[in-house]
């Protein structure tokens, strides 16, 4: 990819300046032209004000990274120049409105091209308002970098037709004013990106989770709003009628987690999502699901911690959280690697939850859940629904059903409630195969110990079965197997690390990439073998304390001693990792 086939665009302003809608307009323009977009939204926990920016990397091939240095910028407010001008790539172009930004920007840097538009003059017609500055600038931008302007026109139709034709018209006129201005004033820009004409979806990881859940047969979803997980709730709420989903905003996370346990016990596929602080409130229910053996899926979206932390910023520091709970119980932890994978893993999680009758945790993060990206339409037909030992009925002459029958694989046949003659009670206390409580029937009798010694290992045995049945994805290596340096990552850093590896290899360095999607359970021997096969491992973690390295060490005894960490609230980029590798002299090629 040394040939220039992408462009990085940044749109910056205050919250409320229309950053998101400009981004949507721009992103859709690209995705409908068949271009690839990777967008990152740097926003704040304040509704208005605060400084916010969106960065889009548009390319003719898949762009793995939102990039570091923008080449094109739309600056929407007074604060923007001081924040973003220094970041610009030399020779980049900057659009702004003279009423918002009055300073002479060339004083800051003279190696950029500045285009100052005058909203009042250019859009001096009825129905406009200063909040539409962004629309005008978007027109100029889209024209300037040679994209298809007709998509924008459609976009306003779709977006505003419900609000009335006048709104559509005025937006189109303002947009057009920007286009016309650019036609006249913008010198030829070096990039003219050509799409392949295939329309792609432009969506977030949260949207993809929602779609994966629907594809995987979700029927009950309960959640309490919490950034950056709320997108799933918003998405599913909209689909509720169409897809016949129960979507419930509960009074808190305690209720949400327990609600899905009720639904799971009834025999429907159920999920919830939250972020760190909310997941803290679900830990007790997680153990309940483990003990009652109720299939449930918990999405936990990481954001900057601890406590409320930096709620709209990126971090990967909740491994210890999702591994918590009182006592031991089986669970699965999956950290999807990108937007496509979010779709796949959501559906897979529902299958695994039912097959093993355990809680499955999908560990996402702010970046994965909220960044926009172009992806090909999802192939729903590839999703299979496997319900494991699920039963609605028993044969007429069946012996009295045992809900928690001890089996070799630890998984008991599961008859869901409603069937005549085989009633049972599921209890959070230790119980026997019938579900009857040790403390009710065996209180203090020596047999209580025997039951305990059968039932506790029965549940824990499921983790072994997962490994035996190859239901746990081993870490995967991309790049040359014998590379001198291995960058180890997990979850959403996949694309950045891939991007960094490509760059490093292009620079002649010998690197590969070791990626974990499934975090727990971990196949000790297999993982150790893979780790040992690497020459020199450097962990790349979006946190301060290398939580993944500690998990690997605690599970396998393999110690990774070097790492690249970022915990300032931003996601990595390929460039960031490349710089760190070089700065730390991690490799002598």
């Amino acid at each position, binding site marked *: 990819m040394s040939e220039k086939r992408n462009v990085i665009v940044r749109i910056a302003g205050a919250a409320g300046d229309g950053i998101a809608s400009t981004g949507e307009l721009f992103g859709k323009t690209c995705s409908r032209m068949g271009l690839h977009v990777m967008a990152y939204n740097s926003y704040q926990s304040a509704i208005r004000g605060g400084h916010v920016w969106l960065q889009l990397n548009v390319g003719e091939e898949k762009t793995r990274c939102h990039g570091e240095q923008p080449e094109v910028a739309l600056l929407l407010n007074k604060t923007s120049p001081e924040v973003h001008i220094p970041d610009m790539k030399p020779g980049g172009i900057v659009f702004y409105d003279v009423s918002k930004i009055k300073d002479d920007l060339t004083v800051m840097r003279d190696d950029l091209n500045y285009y100052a538009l005058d909203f009042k003059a250019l859009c001096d017609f009825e129905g406009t308002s200063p909040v539409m500055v962004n629309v005008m600038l978007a027109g100029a931008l889209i024209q300037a970098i040679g994209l298809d302007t007709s998509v924008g026109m459609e976009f306003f139709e779709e977006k505003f037709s419900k609000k009335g034709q006048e709104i559509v018209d005025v937006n189109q006129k303002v947009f057009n004013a920007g286009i016309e201005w650019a036609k006249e004033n913008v010198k030829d820009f070096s990039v003219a990106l050509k799409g392949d004409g295939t329309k792609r979806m432009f969506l977030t990881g949260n949207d993809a989770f929602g779609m994966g859940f629907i594809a995987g047969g979700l029927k009950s979803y309960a959640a309490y709003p919490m950034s950056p997980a709320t997108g799933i709730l918003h998405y599913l709420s909209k689909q509720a009628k169409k897809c016949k989903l129960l979507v419930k905003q509960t009074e808190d996370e305690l209720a949400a987690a327990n*609600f899905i346990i*009720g639904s799971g016990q*009834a025999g429907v*596929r159920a999920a919830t999502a939250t972020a760190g602080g909310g997941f803290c409130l679900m830990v007790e229910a997680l153990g309940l699901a483990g003990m009652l053996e109720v299939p449930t899926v918990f999405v936990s979206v990481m954001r900057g911690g601890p406590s409320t932390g930096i709620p709209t910023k990126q971090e990967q520091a909740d491994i210890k959280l999702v591994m918590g709970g009182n006592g031991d119980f089986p669970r699965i932890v999956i950290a999807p690697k990108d937007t496509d994978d979010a779709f796949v893993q959501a559906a897979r999680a529902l299958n695994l939850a039912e097959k093993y009758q355990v809680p499955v945790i999908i560990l996402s993060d702010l970046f994965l859940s909220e960044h926009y990206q172009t992806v090909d339409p999802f192939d*729903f037909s590839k999703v299979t629904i496997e319900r494991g030992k699920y039963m609605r009925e028993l044969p007429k002459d069946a012996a009295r059903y045992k809900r928690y029958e001890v089996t070799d694989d630890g998984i008991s046949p599961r008859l869901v*409630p409603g069937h005549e*003659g085989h009633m049972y*009670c599921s209890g959070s206390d230790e119980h026997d195969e019938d579900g009857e*409580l040790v403390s009710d029937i065996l209180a203090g009798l020596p047999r209580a110990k025997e039951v305990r010694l059968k039932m506790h290992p029965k549940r824990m045995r499921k983790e072994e079965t997962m490994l035996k049945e190859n239901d746990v994805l081993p870490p995967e290596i991309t790049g040359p197997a014998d590379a001198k340096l291995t960058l180890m990552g997990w979850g959403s850093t996949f694309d950045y690390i891939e991007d960094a590896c490509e760059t490093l290899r292009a620079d002649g360095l010998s690197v590969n990439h070791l990626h974990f999607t499934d975090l727990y359970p971990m196949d000790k021997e297999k993982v150790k073998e893979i780790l040992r096969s690497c020459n020199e491992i450097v962990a790349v973690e979006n946190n301060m304390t290398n939580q993944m390295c500690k998990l690997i060490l605690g599970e396998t005894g393999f110690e990774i001693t070097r790492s690249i960490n970022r915990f300032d609230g931003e996601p990595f980029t390929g460039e960031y990792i490349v710089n760190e590798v070089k700065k730390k002299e991690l490799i002598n090629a």
Partner: protein
Amino acid sequence: MPETTDREITVKDFKGHINPDWCPGCGDFGVLNVLQRSLAEMNIAPEDVMIVSGIGCSSNLPGFINTYGMHTLHGRSLPIAQGFKLANHGMHVIACGGDGDGLGIGVGHLIHSMRRNVDMTYIIMDNSIYGLTTGQTSPTSGFNMKTKSTPFGNPELPVNPMALAISAGCSFVARGFSGNPKQLVEIYKAAIKHKGFAFIDTFSPCVTFNKVNTAQYYRENTYDIQEDGHDSSDMQAAFARAMEDGKIGTGIFYQKERPTYETPEKETFDIPLVDQPLGVDEKLASELNAQFL
């Protein structure tokens, strides 16, 4: 709305596999008996009933009755019961537990469940004490009552479950006493029949740790509000009864049917979710994709 069955059902059908391990004389025996009788008299089949409880002496009930059951976490029976009910509204769902469970740690869920109005029944077995943890103050323990955790007297006003329920928009609000099974069976049947969230605070004395709120105390200090001419459709009157000093009213304080939770979402709930096919067909799949194109 779940149905009754054609089979003939008797109390025996609800007899559990294990004998309750409550203390002899515990009020909870009465609640269990009355519940079994109510279900039998309504000819509801055991397999059509799910009973969900929290943790506490009272919450052991689902283990002692022959229906489906879940014995869950302290204070969390209501969200679980609602998650179950909305996933399979073909079944009758009854939640039960103690005063600590429902009015202490669980009162937030209670308030929200009442306004939500899922079609289910909730029975609190109210002994004004924490039984299972051997005798601490509970949200319904009287002001100044001495307990293990308040040896110098309870410094808090007790909650008033009737007033709270009426204010929270509960569509069926009642109070009973396990020592008055005749009245209680009628209340439970009315509650189970009620379309919407039905709440019954049931005095169920703890013979071991509460020497104040005894069966005798309730026998002497309660009266039947229906016999006293109470109009359960009158909210103001219900509130006044709830706030009475002196004798304690039992009976149906307030009842008014309104759309249940499922009603506005009837497209989703036309048949129980558990009976619906999983996943989406090709057409719907491409519609879902198209939203993002």
